[in-house]
């Protein structure tokens, strides 16, 4: 696409990759992702939303756009060469969209090579930020997109079912991340051995695993620790209605830090806001149509906290 490929890839800085997930459907992930894109664009950054939702890609609808003529499937089937060619402008200045709807629905289980191609291309997108809406569930596809991101946002609502799915998602993500440590076969064997004998070894929670591996296999332990340090999901509680729910995200993050021993944080919560439903009806992002609504203010606060955390040394 003209104007998007003028600079060669090595002159550009790779975009900051965000992923929005959280296990449960219907908690507001896509709305959060779309508005996150708007928030970043409104700050003057260039941002690309990538709809990687397997179950029901609908970012285009939230942005009030017709179904884009080409999507990730065209890229995977090599009808287009780069993701950048798929990124179409939205009604918000600085924000583009890569639609994924047909691609991943057609493709019940994208192969490892497909995911790798998408992720390589995402890093090449000429933008300051790329936001992946990874959809619901905790399948490997969802987790791999999530784990590739520098900022992985877990969206939760204050309901037991959502909390349960969020923990399932975080646990699955944590273990998948650890299994990426090298050398993989050795790592897998050591992890299995330790989990099988966890009672005798006093490994009571995931946080005890790495210290135990470090004790028996220091090198593998160090490799695991490097992976664990890169796992820093961010919990955002959406649709908070009552004061006592305001602490849920903080409490979950603190429980995760304790349980997994990794740096889970909570940059804030978002209150229930009737204007949000209105914005979805209007098919315009809330940050665009109601920029001073409680939802918009809360989301901008969350983005501010996360980005200032990145500036002071988040995940590398």
């Amino acid at each position: 696409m003209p104007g998007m490929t003028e600079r060669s890839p090595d002159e550009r800085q790779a975009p900051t990759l965000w992923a929005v997930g959280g296990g449960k459907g219907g908690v507001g992930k896509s709305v959060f992702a779309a508005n996150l894109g708007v928030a970043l664009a409104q700050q003057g950054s260039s941002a690309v939303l990538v709809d990687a939702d397997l179950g029901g890609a609908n970012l285009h609808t939230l942005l009030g756009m017709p179904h884009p003529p080409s999507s990730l499937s065209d890229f995977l089937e090599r009808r287009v060469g780069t993701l950048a060619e798929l990124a179409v402008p939205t009604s918000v200045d600085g924000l583009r969209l890569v639609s994924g709807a047909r691609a991943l629905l057609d493709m019940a289980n994208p192969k490892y090579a497909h995911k790798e191609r998408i992720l390589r291309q995402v890093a090449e997108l000429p933008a300051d930020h790329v936001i992946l809406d990874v959809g619901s569930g905790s399948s490997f596809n969802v987790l791999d997109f999530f784990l590739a991101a520098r900022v992985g946002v877990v969206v939760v609502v204050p309901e037991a079912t959502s909390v349960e799915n969020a923990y399932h998602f975080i646990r699955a993500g944590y273990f998948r991340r650890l299994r990426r440590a090298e050398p993989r076969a050795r790592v897998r064997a050591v992890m299995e051995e330790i989990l099988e004998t966890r009672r005798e070894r006093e490994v009571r929670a995931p946080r005890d695993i790495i210290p135990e591996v470090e004790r028996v296999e220091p090198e593998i332990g160090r490799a695991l620790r490097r992976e664990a340090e890169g796992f820093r999901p961010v919990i955002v509680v959406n649709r908070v209605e009552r004061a006592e729910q305001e602490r849920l995200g903080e409490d979950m993050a603190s429980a995760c830090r304790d349980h997994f021993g990794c740096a889970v944080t909570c940059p804030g919560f978002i209150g229930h806001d009737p204007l949000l439903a209105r914005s979805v009806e209007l098919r315009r992002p809330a940050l665009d149509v109601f920029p001073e609504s409680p939802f918009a203010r809360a989301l901008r606060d969350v983005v501010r906290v996360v980005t200032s955390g990145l500036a002071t040394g988040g995940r590398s």
Partner: protein
Amino acid sequence: MSGLPTPRDWEVLGVPPGASLDEIRCGYYRQRDLWGEGSLATYSLLEEGDRAARLAEIEAAWRRFCAALGAAPAPDSSAVAAALEAEESTLPDPAASPGVFLRAHRLRRGMSLEQVAAVTKIHPATLDRLEREELHTLPPAVYVRGFVIQFARTLGLDDPEGLAARFVARLEKSLP
């Protein structure tokens, strides 16, 4: 189980080493809530056996602090539970002393004045004066009413407006 508090005990109660007894007590309540059976924030995170073990660890840590600081006669968990129940059953009457009522609820939730202040945006010193019912130092009734509603909402109390009305009634009675 008893003996001096260990470094892990500070972690278990979620307080920095060197915290005051009040902070440790708040931490104890908070952790008991966080890891307790009805907690939404840890729902499904632990298996039941592990949850029980965690709660036992919290009790043991609290007991060691109490013993070390001579705060309570080394209560075992049943004594702690009994003490809490007593505290619960003797909750002050919200009509007679709405400030004490707020304070009792805040402590039971394990929240510090600063935490309430962070949510309500009311200065901790003002919250403290509300709890102490220092009526002559408080701003006009219209502000007090709003403060009490905010405070009560943050604590998740039923009927914040009713409590605020009782508070204002007391305030107005005390004025010359």
